[in-house]
């Protein structure tokens, strides 16, 4: 056999069998985003980084997010690319999903610490106001009809 074709064949076999580096991230985002699996996780990460660093969320949430992304892919944290390749619609969609994620993670536990006693009194007062208002309305209606 000629050495050159053999060399070519060997080099082509070696090059084709070289394993591609596996992506270091899971193929799907954490469970909450399964509904929108159409999105590319890469763009969402970029947007999240931007949002977290620009301070769109509270500081605490930003820290959590940064730590989460750092754990998953430490190299990308240093890139902080200002622009992402791709169509603008995809970026808008990614931005919206990132906002959703931030909102869910920062959902404030809003609550009012009223005792039942106060709540009952408030309901009674509101009922009395409602009855007063209904009586006034009835009076106005009867005045109109009785003219």
């Amino acid at each position, binding site marked *: 056999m000629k050495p050159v074709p053999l060399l070519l064949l060997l080099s082509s076999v070696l090059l084709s069998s070289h394993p591609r580096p596996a992506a270091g991230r899971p193929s799907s985002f954490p469970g909450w985003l399964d509904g929108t699996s159409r999105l590319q996780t890469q763009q969402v990460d970029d947007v999240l980084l931007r949002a977290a660093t620009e301070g769109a969320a509270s500081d605490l949430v930003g820290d959590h997010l940064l730590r989460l992304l750092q754990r998953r892919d430490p190299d990308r944290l240093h890139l902080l690319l200002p622009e992402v390749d791709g169509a603008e619609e995809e970026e808008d969609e990614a931005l919206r999903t990132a906002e959703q994620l931030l909102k869910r993670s920062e959902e404030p536990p809003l609550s009012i610490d*009223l005792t*039942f006693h106060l709540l*009952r009194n408030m309901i009674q007062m509101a*009922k009395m106001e409602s009855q007063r208002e209904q009586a006034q309305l009835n009076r106005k209606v009867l005045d109109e009809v009785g*003219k």
Partner: protein
Amino acid sequence: MSAALRAQLFLCLISLLSGTGLTRYIEDNEASDGLYSLISLAQKRESEDFVFRRPLRCLDMLATEGYFTFVASRPQLACAAFIIAEPSEVISMELSDVSIDCSAGDFIKIFDGWVLKGEKFPSSNDHPLLPHERYTDYCSSAASTLSGRSSQNVAMIFFRIHSPDSGFTLAVKKVHNPFPCNIMSQSPEGSFTMVMPHQRRNCSFSIIYPVEIRLTDLSLGDAKSNEISPLRQMWPGCSGSGDYVELLGGNGVDTSKMFPVADLCFSLSGLAQMKICCDNSVVRLVSSGNYINRVTFQYRLLDQNEIPKTRENSLENFCAVE
């Protein structure tokens, strides 16, 4: 003249006279008199005279339809307004004239239900929406107004406003609900019939008082007859699968954190009554969706002397009534 000709002439004369005759009539210049006012009542309700308006307070309870305007005189960082309607109504809310600064930390959130001391009514198990879906945030919605409809007869709105003279207007309307599920009672006495037609839902009727509950009618299973069929009595137990009614007592509004006081698995046409000496008494109808279930009950407030101060039997005192 002949009689026929005369008759005809008279007929002609009479018809001419009736055409030119003077009749009495009442001049009706004003359009708002008499029957017309009844017909246009629906239109009148929309006019200024019949719309209820008042300022909204930082901590408020609303039981009427109307327009409630909040204007901050100073920074108000933790405000909430509870809205309650009749058991067979749901609440439709709409925000308008909103002038808050979202970037400064102001927010207005509408919640589908009530949150009290960290507990939600209806509980997450009983509500069709996920916990985060029950909040609707003005700042994160793209539209300039926010509207929503509750799934039951209670709703609430949380708001925080930093700068004085900012505010919003909340419009509350009530919408009829033919099959109410998850009801908060406005009064400590009354009666109600809960019907669950072929839906796999658990419905709670919550009375935030210690009450005596009397169930007067309970129909679980086939709606064609109220007779207790022997087969139905062989259910494995009330807390297994199937349709049943349970009575709960507790000190919070979350029904999943309350204690079952009694449960009934079979239809009854007699009377069953129970005193629940807790701050919150709940009648809960669990439905599999296979049948039409109906429960009718009355409730009345317990006097102070009816609530036992000391337990004489061995049951633990799981409700500490004030």
